[in-house]
């Protein structure tokens, strides 16, 4: 179900540690112990975060028993980032047009004022 997937993604991303883990994974795939290092966290604590990210479809993990590299699954995250980007762009484009419109309007007024 669409809403459930969406909620899971949002919930997974709402946590700063999990976002930092994703940012690390954006640089390339790595192991759980590598991921744990910067956070002063136990392996199990990191694993818990990874499970949440995996359920949300934000990361995928290798199958090899010992070395289970984590990697980023880009598409859900890209969707989230793109709304903010789209919204900003929408307004910026509108404001460019407003700028032009106001300039045209004032030019017209000045021409009219000169004729008087």
């Amino acid at each position: 179900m669409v809403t459930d997937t969406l909620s899971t993604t949002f919930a997974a991303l709402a946590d700063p540690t999990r976002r930092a883990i994703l940012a690390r994974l954006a640089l390339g795939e790595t192991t759980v112990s590598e991921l744990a290092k910067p956070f002063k966290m136990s392996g199990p604590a990191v694993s818990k975060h990874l499970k949440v990210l995996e359920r949300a479809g934000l990361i995928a993990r290798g199958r090899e028993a010992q070395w289970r590299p984590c990697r980023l699954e880009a598409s859900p995250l890209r969707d989230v980032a793109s709304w903010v980007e789209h919204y900003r762009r929408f307004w910026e484009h509108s404001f460019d047009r407003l700028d032009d419109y106001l300039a045209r309007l004032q030019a017209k007024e000045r021409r009219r004022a000169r004729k008087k």
Partner: protein
Amino acid sequence: MASTATEAEFVITRVFDAPRELVWKAWTEPERLAQWWGPKGCTIRVAKLEMRPGGIFHYAMQFQPGHDMWGRFVYREIVAPERLVFVNSFSDADGGITRAPFSQLKQMWPLEVLNEVTLSEQKGKTTLTLRGRPINATEEERKMFASMHESMRQGFGGTFDKLVDCLAKAG
């Protein structure tokens, strides 16, 4: 909740080389609003514009002939010539709220966005500030929106910007 309002805000500021009265008119008169609202290349047909609290601006945005994308503002506060508060959403031809009509962003576009526009004038130039945030969103949507803005502002050490870049490149 005061904290929600500050956490979740989305802010754009722009200076226009025009007096405030004129900018206000551009926002509040239908034929003027239709001249600039929306991205370049689209035409706006105003179905309804009621400039009063509770009133609706209902428009069809057209990027290609025969394809209307409906949207609406519902005004909450109108204080000429300095403050305009409205809720923006996609809509159907009858003015009812709908989800974003494009499949790519459908799931990620908030159903309703509350926008506050303030105008101030200095020496004939107008500074416009637009603050936006989703309303009636799920708790997860709100948290996410807040964290996106926090990360845009602080980049949590710049990593998030890089992440978004990587993702954009990953295509």
